[in-house]
Structure formats: C-alpha cells, structure tokens
C-alpha cells in the first residue's frame, strides 16, 4: 500500500469563508482560553498569527473578524473534498479532527503515470478548490500523515525504508497528545527515531497502550483499522455562507468550488450530469431554486459553472442568501464527446451543444425551442416544440410560414383560389369544420384565414411570410 496524505491546516477557515482582503481568523475555546487556530493572509500582515490569544489579536487589530470554530462545517468540507478525491482512488478516507485526508495511490500508479504525476494532480486540484494542503506520501496511513506535517519531507515508497527514513524527522510531527510530547521533550528526545527505539514493554506500561498502538500503525507492524469513505450515491453538498450574502458575486466562489468537487465525484464514477439543482436558502420564505439543464451530459466543472454563472447573472436575489445547496439526483452516461481525441465533426457538435446550453442558461429554457411535426389535422396542433417529429410521412399541404393565435376578423378582403376544408375532432366531440382561404390585405400582405362553420365567423390564422 502507498498513501498520499493531505493535511489541511487552514480548513477551519476555508470551510467558512471565501478568500478576502480583510483579516479573518478562526478562534477556538479550550478551557478559559480563546485562541486562534487559523487565519488568512491578511492577518499575517497585521501581525496576527496562529496560536495567538484572541484578546491579544483583537487588541492588535480591533476590526479583525473572529469566527468561532465549527466542526460540522469542517466535516462537511472534508467530506466534499473526499468525494472529489475519489477520482484518484477507490480508497479514500479522512480524519475531521486532525484535518487529514488520505488517498491510497498504489493501485492507480500505472494509470496516472507515477507518484509524481498523482502528487501534482492533487496539488493542482487543491489549488483549484482554494485549499491550502501539505502532502506526505508513505506506506502507512500514519507515516503519510507524519510526512505531511514536515516541510520538504522525503517521500517514502517502501515499507523497508520506513524506519530509516523516519529516523531523523522531528518529534513534533508525530500525532501525540500535547502532554506526551512535553514528556518526551523533557526526556531529551527530539526525533521520531528516538521514540521508536524505546523499549516496548516499558513504554506501554508507562505511557499507555495507545502510544504503542500508534507506533505500530506508524511503522506498519499493525494494520490500520480505518475504513475507506464512500460518498453517497446522490450528490448533495451544502455550503453555509458566513453572514447573509446579498450580491451574486458572493455566491460565485463557493459555487465554483462545489463544481470542482462535483467533477471529481463524477470522474470517480465515470458518469456525468444533465441536470443540477441549486437551492439558495434564505432566512425566511421559500428558497430560490436554480435548475440547470444541459443538452448533453456534462462533467466539466468550468462549463457547468459558466452555465450557473450565466443563470445567476439573470437572477435577482430578492432576499439575502444564507446557504447554498447543490443537488444531483440523476446521473447520465457521458457521451464520448468529452474525450480528448475527437474529430472535428464531433467537436463542432459539442460546440453547438455548448452554445445551446449557454443560450438556455441566459434566455431561459422556454426561449430556446426546437420545432417538430405532429400528425394532426388541425393546423395549430400539427406542430410542436420538441426535438423529434412524429409526423412527416404524410405529404404536407401548402402552409404559410407564420401562424398566429386565431384572431377573429370582421371585414374580409377579397379571397381567391379554392378553399381547403379541414375537419377534425368529430370523433371526440370537439367537432371543428373550417374552410381555409388565402386573401390579400390592403397593404399587400397575404393572409391565411378560415371560416368556422359552427360560429359562422372568420378568423385570421397565418401569414404567407
């Protein structure tokens, strides 16, 4: 086995708040003390750093925005990230307390073309998602986790190299309780190797069996009992906004991230979507629902996001948004249109579908219509607005290019030619008997009019455009 572990120290912040120029920090209370566990770049400029006391930080920078740490949000974020990471491996797991995400990479080495390639893909993906992540690669979960805590750590590929490679790494990178770390430091220990050579029996007696268990899982003596995570079959991702958002721009960052995560989820399952639903929840009242349909199944985050953005720009937010929920309930097989090797004809096709999606997103579904035929006698029923026609076998008589809603007319211009009689509906009680004529109006236009036998009146039904 070979694991890639990503440590996500900024997740408490990233799960709450999009990047901003103003100093924002996450505070956690432990006992009587309230201290900072994460802060953004702007904080560093103001002299505020992680581990600082909240009161001190506020004294330094009174307009600092302090947010209480929230583990449900972090959990939601790391789950979203795990769903995204499934594109790299069928075996993914995470630890929401330690803010770690593991991906088993041995099985995909050949597919991705080596450890370096997987690593750079993960790094690139994390940057795309807007997460800070540090990567460690090792043959056990705990070794990978340990390496992710050490800057510029080596990569350990084989179990046999493990002990030697861990030897010189700093003690502080180990996942040990604070009091234990302190005790070891007091003993004069400073590296991982020094802990590993402690006599086992004495260690277990003195520091408890958990330490031994951890050391064994670190070195691979004991199998790690962690189970892989599997994202649910229906995709659902929530993002609670920090404070209410009144402008569309405030929704774009979290939405973009959601679509990148969704893309990973879709790649993992080799599937795609033709419809996504986005609910914008408000403090009160019904949520605003955006339903994005695409002509062809899609999985590309950039394209899906572009469609949503287009739609959002046409949407007026009546009330501030508190929370965004992205749902996908149905998945479609991805046609081969998005494979990298496609001929120009298919690419054209793809361009056409992209164009239609864009038009639909901006103009609304009902403003983009395809025309079809229906095998009906009444002219107003002989057409429809769906893709495929069911008629077309019967020869079609001469018809005008434009039709109108039948409109009653009082004065009738001169008519010429033989009338065409259209009768329909006698079989279902909605008997219609009409005589259609072509007449010329005073301005030179040619009208398609009919005489309705029942009401004995004339109607304008079309124009010979």
């Amino acid at each position, binding site marked *: 086995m070979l694991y890639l572990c990503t440590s996500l120290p900024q997740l408490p912040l990233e799960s709450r708040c999009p990047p901003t120029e103003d100093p924002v920090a996450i505070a956690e209370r432990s006992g009587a003390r309230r201290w900072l566990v994460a802060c953004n770049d702007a904080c560093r400029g103001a002299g505020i750093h992680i581990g600082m006391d909240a009161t001190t930080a506020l004294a330094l920078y009174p307009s600092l925005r302090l947010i209480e740490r929230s583990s449900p949000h972090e959990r939601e974020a790391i789950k979203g990230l795990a769903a995204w990471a499934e594109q790299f491996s069928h075996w993914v797991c995470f630890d929401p307390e330690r803010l770690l995400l593991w991906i088993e990479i041995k099985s995909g080495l050949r597919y991705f073309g080596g450890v370096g390639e997987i690593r750079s893909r993960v790094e690139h993906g994390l940057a795309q998602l807007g997460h800070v992540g540090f990567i460690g690669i090792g043959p056990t979960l705990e070794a990978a986790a340990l390496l992710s805590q050490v800057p510029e750590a080596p990569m350990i590929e084989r179990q046999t190299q493990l002990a030697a490679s861990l030897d010189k790494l700093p003690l502080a990178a180990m996942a040990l309780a604070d009091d234990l770390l302190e005790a070891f430091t007091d003993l004069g220990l400073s590296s991982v190797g020094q802990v590993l050579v402690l006599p086992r029996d004495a260690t277990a007696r003195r520091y408890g069996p958990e330490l031994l268990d951890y050391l064994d899982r670190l070195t691979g003596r004991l199998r790690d009992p962690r189970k892989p995570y599997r994202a649910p079959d229906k995709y659902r991702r929530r993002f609670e906004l920090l404070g209410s958002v009144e402008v569309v721009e405030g929704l774009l960052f979290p939405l973009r991230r959601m679509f990148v995560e969704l893309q990973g989820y879709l790649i993992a399952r080799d599937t795609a979507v033709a419809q996504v639903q986005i609910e914008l929840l408000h403090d009160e009242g019904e949520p605003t629902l955006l339903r994005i349909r695409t002509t062809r199944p899609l999985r590309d985050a950039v394209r899906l996001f572009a469609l949503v953005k287009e739609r959002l720009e046409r949407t007026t937010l009546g009330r501030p948004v508190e929370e965004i929920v992205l749902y996908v309930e149905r998945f479609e097989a991805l046609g081969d249109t998005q494979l990298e090797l496609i001929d120009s004809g298919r690419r054209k096709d793809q361009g056409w579908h992209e164009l239609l999606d864009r038009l639909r997103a901006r*103009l609304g579904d009902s403003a983009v219509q395809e*025309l079809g035929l229906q095998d009906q006698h009444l002219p107003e029923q002989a*057409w429809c607005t769906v*893709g495929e026609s069911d008629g077309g076998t019967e020869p*079609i008589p001469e018809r005008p*290019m434009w039709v109108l809603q039948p409109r009653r007319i009082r004065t009738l211009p001169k008519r010429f030619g033989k009338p065409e009689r259209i009768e329909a509906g006698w079989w279902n009680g909605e008997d219609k008997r009409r005589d259609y004529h072509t007449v010329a109006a005073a301005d030179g236009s040619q009208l398609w009019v009919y005489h309705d036998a029942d009401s004995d009146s004339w109607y304008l039904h079309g124009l010979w*455009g």
Partner: protein
Amino acid sequence: MLPIPALPFSPKAAAVDALLRSTSLVWRGHGTAAAPSVATGHVSLDRLLPGHGWPVGAVTELVPDTSGIGELRLLMPALRRIACDEGRPVVLVGPPHIPYAPALYRAGLPLRRLIWLQPSSETETQWAAEQTLRAGIAGAVLMWTDTRADLALRRLQLAAEEGQSIAFVYRPPRALRNPSPAAVRLALRPATRALRIDVLKARGGQGGSVLCPLRSAC
C-alpha cells in the same frame, strides 16, 4: 401605420446607373471581391449581389414593407443549401410570429437543424444573435430587430465575420431613413406571386431592382 418610405431605387438613380454602365471609363469595383457566398436560388438576384449570392461572414439587411409578403420564403433556397448540403443549423432569433414547422418542413428544411429563439427583450435578442453567429456553427442566423442603433449591426457584422455565417437581419421600414452598415441591404415589396426586391446597397455588387417569383402561396 408607418409612412411608406421614398421609392428606394428612384428613376434618377436608375438614370445615373445607366449612364455609368454605358461607359467603360469609370471603374465601379464590381465583381472584384470573390467573397464566399451562398446562391440565393434566384438567378436574377444573384447577379446583383457581391459574389453572386448571400455574402457569408456578413450582414444582409432585409426591410420588408410588412410581414406576410414572402419575406421568409425568399431565403428558403439558401437555407436549404445551408441546412441540407452543408449540414449547418439555422437559427431564428425573435421572429414576429410563430415559425410554422409544417411550412418549413415542406420548404425542405430539416427541422432538427432549426432552432427558434424567442428572447424577451431587444438586448437579449442582440446578445443571442451575436453569440450564435460568433460560435460559427450555425450557417445562418435570421434575426428580427427594431433597434435603431448602428452599433448593434456593426457588432453583428463582426460576429458574422468571426463565425463565417450569414446574418439576415429583418428591420422595419423606418430603418430605411438611415444609412446601414450592412454589406447588403434589400427593400422587399409585395408583388403578385412574387417579391419586388430593391438592392439598396451591395458592397462589391451592383444596385438594381428585381422581381423574384415565389413558390407556393396563391
């Protein structure tokens, strides 16, 4: 009722035209541009247009007197060529009435290559036409607009050029009061079983007036 515009191709203009034609000393730039075009299906009209057909990658402005005179049927031969032979879609943007599928089908247009857009405002109409032209997949975009802005037409011209498709822009008669940036501008008037076409402007073609017989309808 709108005032009927002045006769587009006046007898005076015709006289000047005849005079210029009678001499070979004046070079008038005809037939120089071998611009790509799609034949209109009407030989007499082709002769007057640059490249002997509807110019590809340009705006053709059509100004019918009123609707219901054959203004759409005029384009059918070319649209058929675009949709059937070239396999490129045809897009209608903001038509004044419902385009009737059976008539279009009867005219030989494959309906699956036809898209009808009905945007809710002038701005959206303009946007949709531009996007569609620029994408370069549709072979022709037919657009109905009553914009008075020259800029709108210039933008369409650029989009058509970029996508190498034909932009047919239908405008109301009052548009004739102002000059047009379009490559071709035609005024359409009703005639018996035909359409009277005045070529008011044809960049690289020649002006003139022609009677186009129309199939179907009385």
